[in-house]
């Protein structure tokens, strides 16, 4: 009964050389292929992926999955006897058209591969992309794009080509970072006294400011209304938010408490004698 049914299927020809039976067998091969691909990916994710970096594990998992599916498809075409030569000729012409149309897609793919090989930054790093105006934490680099969670909580997807060709400033590859602030004091004030007041305030009120290298104070400019002092403070790389946004406030309060004037812009006008 079963064999008769199969023979019946074998006699139903869809196109030249492709019968309903061979299509059924092909479908089974593809189904088994997908099943194997999923199992391999599952085993890989469970046993091998934890030993690799998250980016590599994700991409290798995809490579294994789609590799097995492509092999299954090739087995399917060879067992069913589908002649792909016509498709290849048509594909050659079609490929040129597709090539032009998908230029940016391929470019993103190639850039993604180079990003994975070069690894200028890794997942979880804080990055600043000045060319794109994006700063945040790198979530992942996948086949066509990278995702960055910006410090305002939003997630930005960046095409790999843009990510690869722009300047990348890594904010977390060194153990410490430096924050800067510029304060102006009146010309009549004692510069050393003002520096001493600010130094003491940083030491007492900023637990994340490094003692060594100690905060640096540089006379930046003898400006129109004030002597401008640049204050440079080092801190652990994770604690930018504990230092940089608070630095000016600490300095301002310290100068106020020390009775040191932060002058308003002022201009002396001399009236010429007639």
């Amino acid at each position, binding site marked *: 009964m079963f064999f008769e049914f199969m023979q019946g299927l074998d006699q139903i020809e869809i196109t030249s050389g492709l019968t309903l039976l061979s299509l059924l067998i092909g479908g089974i091969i593809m189904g088994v292929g997908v099943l194997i691909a999923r199992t391999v990916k599952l085993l890989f994710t469970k046993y091998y992926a934890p030993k690799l970096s998250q980016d590599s594990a994700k991409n290798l998992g995809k490579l294994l999955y789609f590799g097995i599916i492509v092999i299954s498809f090739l087995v399917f075409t060879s067992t069913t006897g589908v002649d792909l030569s016509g498709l290849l000729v048509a594909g050659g012409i079609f490929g040129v058209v597709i090539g032009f149309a998908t230029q940016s897609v391929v470019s993103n793919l190639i850039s993604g591969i180079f990003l994975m090989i070069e690894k200028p930054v890794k997942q979880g790093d804080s990055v600043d992309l000045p060319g794109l105006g994006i700063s945040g934490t790198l979530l992942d680099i996948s086949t066509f794009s990278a995702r960055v969670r910006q410090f305002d909580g939003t997630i930005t997807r960046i095409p790999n080509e843009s990510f690869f060709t722009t300047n990348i400033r890594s904010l977390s590859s*060194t*153990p*410490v970072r*430096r924050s800067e602030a510029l304060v102006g004091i009146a010309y009549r004030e004692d510069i050393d006294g003002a520096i001493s007041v600010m130094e003491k305030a940083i*030491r*007492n009120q900023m*637990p*994340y*400011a*490094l*003692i*060594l*290298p100690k905060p640096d104070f540089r006379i930046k400019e003898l400006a129109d209304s004030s002597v401008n002092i640049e204050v440079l403070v*080092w*801190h*652990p790389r*994770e*604690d930018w938010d*504990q230092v940089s946004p608070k630095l000016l406030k600490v300095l301002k309060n310290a100068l106020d408490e020390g009775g040191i004037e932060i002058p308003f812009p002022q201009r002396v006008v001399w009236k010429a004698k007639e």
Partner: protein
Amino acid sequence: MSELNSNYTNYGVYEIDDDFDCIFPKTDVKFRKIGENVFSYFRSDSEDKTIEKMIPTKNNKIRIEIAPIRPLNHPSHRTSYVYLELETPVFLSENSHAKIFARCPIEIGVFLIDGENKNSLDFFTCDPLNSRFGLYGTPESGTLCKYAKSEIVESLDDSIPYKNAVMEINFGNELQGGHSISKVIFPITENSVYYDKSRAIIDSISAVIKKKLTIETIDVSSDKVSTNWTESPTYERKELVKKLNMGVD
């Protein structure tokens, strides 16, 4: 020792079945019984920070341990290394050895005892101005450390209660020619802290100047101290810390 106020609470294990106050320099810790089988924990410190926690219990009492711990948690855990800058550098002549006692900052840990387990409830420092970070090396590739100026003292008993502990440092110089040592950088996670009433000591370290190939380095390693003082529970999670290659000045 002159700073010691006899009203301050000693380190040790306490069984609490009612309200209990602990007093430390610039820091107050209060346990309050707020209901059947529920206590509250409250801390206020010199930086105007307060912490409050509820402690549900199985019965009407709790056991706590107050102990000195490694100085790695305040203001946040960022490193396992300590950078001690000796206030007076030690000069070692050719092939010589020297033993000194130096002060090392500590923090105070509060642990909740549940059978054999000691769970960390809180930590704080009584000397926040000396609980700061420093960098050993360059900003590009240096090592972030907890930094402290260290005073050389006469014996293990000379710690300032609640603020620091004393550790023995054994220096050695295997080089030809004399050298000064003004700082010691080491992963303190290998050193245990011990206490007796309000004083504390830390496992000793050895710092030997030697030549590795063509580079002169200071090889720092930890040694267990032999004492009958009580060993403090560990506050931080155990993690593998790389030994640092310290250069000679």
